[in-house]
């Protein structure tokens, strides 16, 4: 195990003091002189033609400065899948038709929020309601109401993944089973709701402060939809209060505030209410899953077939990616000699479904891991053994899809096995369930169609040794700011405190695609490391000249000390050398650049994280209520960079993913979300959290900076499955319909008793 000076040490979060003293200013806190407040009028129909909007009364209300509708836009449709124009299907501010309850139809700017809200009530909209369709299996039928002209039978996208001969595999199998699952939706519930402050000035430039995961994407999308030059738009997001996948697409707060500001040449702030956050932002993709697996009687996996219909909601959003990833990760983290997946994303008159932490993999893992335990049970094989038998290993190639380089799955299984055995005999009505996962460490997708490198970094070393590090990555709480500063400091050989980080401003930061797809540590990290290595090289050139060692000696820098590796006592202070190096360069500070774009790294990612999670839970046989007791996770994220960060990501992932497993849901009635508030939407609080334990399995990932991989998204994959399996082992029942509520447990237990 390699020891580093800064990497894998418990440094304080670089934004820590700002956050714990209340000084950190989020978009939610931003006020500008002459700022107006905006609100959005949203459709109360799931499907309707927009015949007419009369804004005259609203415009006349004292304090209202502007009222705009879709007619006041350029009429462009947008979406992140820019490579495929038909998938850019969302206008955001609807012009002719509304396709979900909550779709924006008008927007108001006024002197204060109350006036803006009053104005909304004065806008008269004439709708022609159309029949709506809410379930994908209904929407795909002949004769169902059609949402988009181009999409017959409401089929938005389809995906197919295949290798080997699945039919032959099933023929050879000793045991075949098929199961149907329903995976629910989930709300991100970022503590900071979607918000934006747009500030357009007469010079033709637009600045937008916003809570986002990708200021670069928002800049480009805004420029396009508003008809502005890309770099006449500046997006600033120094602090983002949570993202989880909800904030890297263009949203209504950003678009409407920009439209209003452009009209008025005054700053306009729009903050979505918590209710709007639930009803009118994107959410996790619900999926109807069919999984059939064929295995040998000793548990060897032979063939797997999966079919999915996803509830797309009204627009594509990022649902097309979720559709692919769920099919891809359905086979993870095992060796399946043959596999076939067909996925269909179907438009429905519900709020669009898109990206949420895990991006289709939590759904896939729930189904896969639930079925594996059922198979193991039927065949009388231990749940860890059956997984061990089929686990991926370093060097494994997923045919046509991916090369697995580092893979600590085996060690993870061993550690969890050890923990389970240490628990001994469990009391009645308690069970331990496991689930294994593998996840991408940096989605390689460029559906955004950018010519830029996927990530870039710039370093400037100043005369006092202070290092300016410019990154494009976005910290939304996952800690990328701290991670990048650590990587830079370690590579360059300076102290963590020497790093001055610049991020969150498209005007002076290099491009990075954003905090999604678990890409920041690997991609931005690699770019930072490259820049730091180049800067270091420049410093070492000067140091070599000063120290004049024999050519066979190598120099290195550690903790601000430039030294001969073989004779570390012979060296110079980094801070002294920098001064002279700058003088020697005609007064130019040391500058270096780095970048990273994956090439020839398969279809999904250059690297994969792995893990195994065990959940110990009690099931109350009288009420069906589940209580989490312990959650132990062994995971492999390569080299841990920020240990406090990794632990935090793991525990946060457990809370979110356990919620997905048994408490969180978005029930709907004809497209209307029934629990759009934090009382009726039940996420875990401190009192529901189990004891957690993390067991690190260290591997070295050649693709990652210092061997590092992602830690944070993959960890949301296993929990629902582990929980379901815990219930299975506690009670003998397996529930395939998320969330696993007490009522479902009780009803299933009753049915089992009858049989």
């Amino acid at each position, binding site marked *: 195990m390699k020891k580093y000076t800064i990497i894998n040490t418990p440094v304080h979060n670089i934004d820590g003091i700002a956050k714990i003293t209340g000084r950190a200013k989020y978009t939610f806190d931003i006020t500008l002189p002459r700022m107006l407040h905006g609100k959005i009028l949203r459709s109360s129909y799931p499907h309707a033609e927009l015949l007419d909007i009369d804004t005259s009364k609203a415009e006349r209300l004292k304090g209202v400065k502007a009222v705009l509708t879709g007619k006041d836009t350029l009429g462009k449709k947008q979406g992140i899948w820019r490579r495929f124009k038909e998938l850019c299907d969302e206008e955001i501010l609807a012009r002719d038709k509304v396709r979900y309850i909550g779709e924006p139809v008008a927007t108001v700017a006024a002197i204060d929020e109350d006036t803006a809200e009053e104005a909304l009530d004065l806008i008269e909209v004439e709708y022609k309601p159309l029949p709506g369709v809410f379930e994908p299996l209904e929407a795909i039928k002949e004769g169902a109401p059609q949402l988009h002209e181009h999409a017959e039978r409401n089929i938005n996208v389809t995906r197919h993944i295949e290798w080997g001969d699945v039919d032959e595999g099933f023929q050879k199998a000793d045991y075949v089973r098929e199961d149907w699952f329903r995976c629910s939706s989930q709300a991100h519930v970022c503590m*900071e709701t979607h918000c934006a402050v747009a500030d357009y000035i007469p010079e033709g430039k637009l600045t937008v402060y916003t809570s986002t995961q990708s200021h670069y994407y928002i800049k480009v999308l805004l420029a396009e939809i508003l008809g502005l030059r890309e770099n006449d738009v500046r997006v600033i997001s120094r602090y983002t209060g*949570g993202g989880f996948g909800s904030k890297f697409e263009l949203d209504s707060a950003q678009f409407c505030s920009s439209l209003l500001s452009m009209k008025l040449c005054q700053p306009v702030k729009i903050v979505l209410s*918590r209710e709007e956050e639930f009803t009118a932002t994107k959410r996790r993709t619900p999926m109807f899953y069919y999984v059939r697996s064929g295995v040998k009687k000793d548990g060897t996996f032979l063939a797997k077939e999966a079919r999915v219909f996803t509830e797309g909601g009204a627009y594509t959003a990022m649902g097309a990616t979720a559709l692919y990833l769920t099919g891809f990760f359905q086979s993870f983290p095992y060796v399946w000699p043959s596999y076939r997946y067909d996925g269909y994303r179907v438009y429905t008159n519900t709020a669009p479904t898109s990206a949420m932490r895990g991006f289709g993999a939590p759904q896939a893992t729930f189904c896969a891991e639930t079925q594996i335990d059922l198979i193991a049970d039927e065949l009388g094989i231990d749940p860890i053994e059956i997984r061990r038998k089929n686990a991926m290993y370093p060097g494994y190639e997923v045919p046509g899809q991916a090369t697995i380089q580092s893979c600590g799955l085996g060690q993870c299984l061993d550690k969890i096995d050890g923990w389970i055995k240490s628990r001994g005999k469990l009391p009645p009505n308690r069970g331990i369930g496991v689930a294994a996962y593998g996840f991408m460490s940096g989605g390689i997708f460029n559906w955004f169609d950018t010519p830029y490198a996927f990530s870039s970094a710039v370093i400037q070393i100043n005369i006092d040794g202070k290092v300016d590090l410019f990154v494009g990555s976005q910290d939304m709480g996952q800690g990328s700011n701290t991670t990048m500063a650590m990587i830079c400091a370690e590579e360059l050989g300076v102290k963590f405190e020497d790093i001055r980080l610049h991020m969150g401003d498209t005007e002076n930061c290099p491009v990075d695609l954003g905090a999604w797809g678990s890409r920041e540590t690997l991609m931005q990290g690699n770019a930072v490391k490259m820049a730091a290595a180049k800067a270091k090289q420049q410093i070492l050139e000067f140091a070599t000249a000063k120290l004049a060692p024999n050519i066979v000696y190598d120099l290195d820098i550690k903790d601000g000390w430039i030294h001969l590796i073989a004779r570390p006592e012979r060296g110079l202070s980094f801070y002294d050398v920098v001064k002279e190096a700058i003088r020697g360069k005609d007064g130019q500070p040391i500058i270096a650049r780095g970048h990273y774009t994956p090439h020839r790294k398969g279809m999904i990612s250059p690297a994969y994280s792995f893990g195994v999670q065990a959940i110990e839970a009690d099931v109350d046989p009288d009420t069906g209520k589940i209580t989490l007791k312990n959650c132990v996770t062994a995971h492999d994220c390569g080299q841990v960079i920020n240990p406090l960060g990794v632990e935090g990501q793991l525990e946060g992932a457990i*809370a979110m993913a356990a919620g997905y497993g048994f408490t969180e849901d978005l029930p709907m009635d004809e497209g209307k979300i029934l629990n759009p508030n934090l009382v009726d939407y039940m996420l875990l609080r*401190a009192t529901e959290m189990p004891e957690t334990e993390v067991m690190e399995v260290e591997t070295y990932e050649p693709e990652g900076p210092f061997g590092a991989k992602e830690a944070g998204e993959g960890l949301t994959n296993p929990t629902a499955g582990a929980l379901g399996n815990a219930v299975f082992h506690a009670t003998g029942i397996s529930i395939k319909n998320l969330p696993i509520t007490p009522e479902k447990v009780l009803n299933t237990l009753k049915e089992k008793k009858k049989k």
Partner: protein
Amino acid sequence: MKKKLLHLTVNDEYHELYISPKKLLVEILRDELGLTGTKRGCSTGACGACTVLLDGTAVKSCSILAMQADGAKVTTVEGLADGAELTPLQQSFLDHGAFQCGFCTSGMLISATAFLREDPATKDIKEGIQGNICRCTGYNSILRAIKAVAEGKDKEEGR
């Protein structure tokens, strides 16, 4: 709507403000006094991001009319540290990484500060922050941070 005079001491600073009686305490703190450390995360008094101390007890400032705090002493997150000197709890949050996006952190710190003052140390720490939602941390790092301070207090007070 007739404005009323509000007398409010916030973080040991006395203010007199003419306000509309329908203003919530959180609106006065954030919008009138510029103390944006206190956040708002919901409209149903459920999330706790707006928690402040009102005459020493933790309350949700989004669920109190500002006029009800007339004459009271309020402490917000900005009033915890003494200049550059963090409180032991704030230091513990730093040491344990007990925050991620940071949006709920102000409310958490206030709830935990009140809890550590009022309740027997190290018992029921989960109860102490039950009224505060965090979507990022999964709470356990926050509990560790609070526990460390509580145990330190226990030692000091000979428990």
